[in-house]
């Protein structure tokens, strides 16, 4: 694919998922060194548990967000869904261990319903997903602000184990999140409906013309996303022992989008995946843990996170541009990406490939 004799830069030979994990490794090394210089150990049990615990909550939300972003959509209501679901879970359980299944069921139902609403607004009413999910989020916010002045409901002690207990250094919540991630990866890679999410995100028109019911795919993605956010809400309730409306102010909506994009999924959809998203989640978790240990000023912390996110996306954008540049008629940049037929020998440089999308 690249002109003979020109070694592509490392970042060009790797797939984007590998690149994400390479970045994670780099951040881990730098973080470990920084922590070590201030006399700590980033890989001490407490710190590892801290990193994993942080990643479980965001992991659920970002997992769901990956589905919608892959479809070329977006969900800004996840923070509100989390808050609502923590309340629905906690108030339904009302401290009674026997009511745990009921609470979980109620959360799944409420979250799924909100996802359905989001999906229908986006696919049937054709409202821009940014506006649609922001609107639905605001409706939930209004409901929460009116009805819940403080924490409400009580989570039984058994269920709190979901928030706190560990298997060795691995928090149960993280383990559950990882299982969900694996299921998500299988779903995208092994089911038709997963395949069709890539198609819808790549081009709704192409997907539609191929016979894919694009609306249905979008709705599915939104339902999965909201349910993932609902599970994150349950996890919050398990940690707090009660439901809390204030969670929506914690920025999980934008963090989840940042994690997905950090993970190499195109914001326009059509390319990416959950493996990358997990990498993005871990990167954010490691950054937060390191900043915490080093007691970085919280406002400056946000500055650093912002820088990391922009830098990562700038690198991805660069890779995209390099690839597109091959589609030219004249130029000496070699013949990027021409499939060489066996018989006719390709002439160099001249007259190669062509224009980007002929203007009609």
């Amino acid at each position, binding site marked *: *694919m690249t002109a003979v004799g020109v070694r592509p830069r490392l970042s060009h030979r790797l797939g984007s998922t590998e690149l994400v994990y390479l970045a994670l490794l780099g951040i881990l090394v730098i973080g470990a060194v920084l922590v070590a210089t201030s006399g700590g150990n980033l890989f001490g049990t407490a710190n590892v548990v801290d990193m994993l615990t942080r990643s479980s909550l965001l992991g659920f939300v970002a997992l769901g967000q990956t589905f919608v972003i892959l479809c070329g959509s977006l969900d800004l209501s996840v923070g509100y869904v989390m808050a609502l679901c923590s309340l629905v879970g906690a108030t339904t359980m009302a401290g009674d261990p026997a009511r745990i299944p009921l609470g979980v069921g109620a959360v799944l139902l409420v979250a799924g319903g909100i996802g359905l609403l989001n999906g229908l607004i986006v696919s049937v009413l054709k409202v821009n997903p940014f506006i649609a999910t922001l609107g639905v989020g605001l409706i939930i916010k209004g409901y929460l602000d009116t009805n819940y002045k403080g924490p409400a409901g009580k989570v039984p002690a058994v269920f709190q184990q979901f928030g706190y207990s560990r298997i060795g250094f691995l928090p149960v919540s993280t383990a559950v999140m990882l299982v969900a991630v694996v299921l998500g990866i299988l779903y995208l*890679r*092994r*089911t*038709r409906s*997963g*395949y*069709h999410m*890539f*198609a819808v995100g*790549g*081009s709704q*028109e*192409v*997907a539609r*013309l*191929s*016979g*894919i019911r694009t609306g249905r795919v979008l709705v599915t993605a939104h339902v999965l996303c909201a349910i993932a956010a609902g599970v994150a809400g349950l996890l919050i309730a398990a940690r707090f022992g009660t439901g809390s409306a204030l969670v929506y102010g914690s920025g999980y909506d934008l963090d989840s989008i940042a994690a997905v994009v950090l993970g190499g999924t*195109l914001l326009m959809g*059509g*390319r990416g995946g959950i493996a990358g998203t997990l990498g993005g989640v871990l990167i954010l978790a490691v950054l937060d843990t390191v900043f915490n240990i080093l007691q970085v000023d919280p406002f400056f912390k946000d500055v650093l996170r912002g820088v990391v996110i922009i830098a990562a996306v700038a690198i991805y954008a660069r890779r995209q541009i390099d*690839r597109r540049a091959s*589609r*030219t*008629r*004249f*130029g000496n940049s070699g*013949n990027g*990406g*021409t*499939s*060489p*037929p*066996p018989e*006719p*020998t*390709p*002439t160099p440089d001249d*007259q*190669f*490939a*062509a*224009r980007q*999308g*002929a*203007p*009609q």
Partner: protein
Amino acid sequence: MAVTPVTDTVLRMRGIRKSFLGVPVLHGVDLDLRAGEVHALMGENGAGKSTLMKILAGVYQADGGTIELNGQDVAFAHPLEAQRAGVSTVFQEFNLLPERTVAENVFLAREPRRRGLVDADRMNADTAALLADLGLDWLAPRRRVRTLSVAGQQIVEIVKALSYDARIISMDEPTAALADEEVELLYRLVRTLRERGVAILYVSHRLKEIFDLSDRVTILKDGALVDTVDTARITSDELVRKMVGRPITSFFPDKLPDTSVGEVRLRIRGGGNEQLDGIDLDVRGGEITALAGLQGSGRTEIAHALFGVARFTKGTVELDGKPVRLRSARQAVRAGLALVTEDRKAEGLALNQSVAANARLVLDAVLPGQAGRRATRIPGILSSLELVSQGTGQEVRFLSGGNQQKVVLAKWLATDPAVMVLDEPTRGIDVGAKQKVYTLMRELCARGVAILMISSELQEVIGMADRVVVLRDGRIAGELPAGSDEESVMKIATGQVSA
């Protein structure tokens, strides 16, 4: 060329009519396709080829006429219906997902499954088998489509069509974006398909291809059928004549008496970028130089290069003898260039703003110091163009196409340009407005302005230009003097002769 004559007609289109917004595009066209033939469809831009093809593909629905497929009446309401009936279309804009693999694209929405899960191995194997069957072993099923050349992507489209068991495949200018050696690859594939009894409808502007590949050719002109002939029984001269032969009307105004050809005002030497190569061009004051050529030949790209959209990376540009660097539209305007763009709604106007605001747009944005003084002339310019509006406060989106174009022209005239580049200046406007644009061009010439006109309407090129520069594949293919005929232009543009 010699193919065993097959006569089983698989498709019979009769009296196909289609109008868009009341403007008839096809008036009663007939077309037959036989199994195992390559049937070329020819005609100038706007002759109705694409519309006919889209009706066959189910993208548009005909207003009248019948389509018979294997003896049965059909009407495709959706491209998918056509595809399922065995009629596939390869459009110029590909219906592929660039981020997915070849196999994923071929089997999109029909992924083979085993125990409910997608069987990727089988999908790749099936794709490999399809490819091997067509002698395309070098194309790996797991390759991402984005990494393929245009030819490779086209092949994926064709393979996808075949995987639906297509008996009819239509291709819209399949070679328009291909390099020579890629064209050969496509030829071989088309021939393979023909041997297997597939009927191929092949739209192309390139005469050589028509004669290389096709068994029969149907010629359309202005939405009507001219003729369907065996390719072996027609010469390229006859073909071109059938395609363009229309009476020249005295529609175009004469040169104004006090027009004289002056100095070179715009000079390009060795201009080149990713789309253009070795462009040498002189545009003189008082003269209309036309850029002709097929869609995508590089006409608009020259205008874009001058305006810094996709600027020249090679060569020099001089304005009135002084070298200029044109890295942005802003610099171009300051240097004395004006560009009336091809797409007036997207690039020429702020549609929801007033006539007055649009007419001042360039002045305010680029020449703020002089905006006030020069803007005083705008009402005069607008009335000389006979703009019909409910006053200068009206939003331009409510104006007709012709009046919108007048606002665009006024916007540029206010800057007093030395060189005016007009890209498809009369596209989609009514006859009266067209004539007004032509008169204006003559007036500008008389004032010594140099005009570079880009047009795909040959009639307009012949009727207005003092010089016709013909482009092909990003290079200047030839130049013709005023008074040349449409056929000569077409011959150079299609590569039949090189002047």
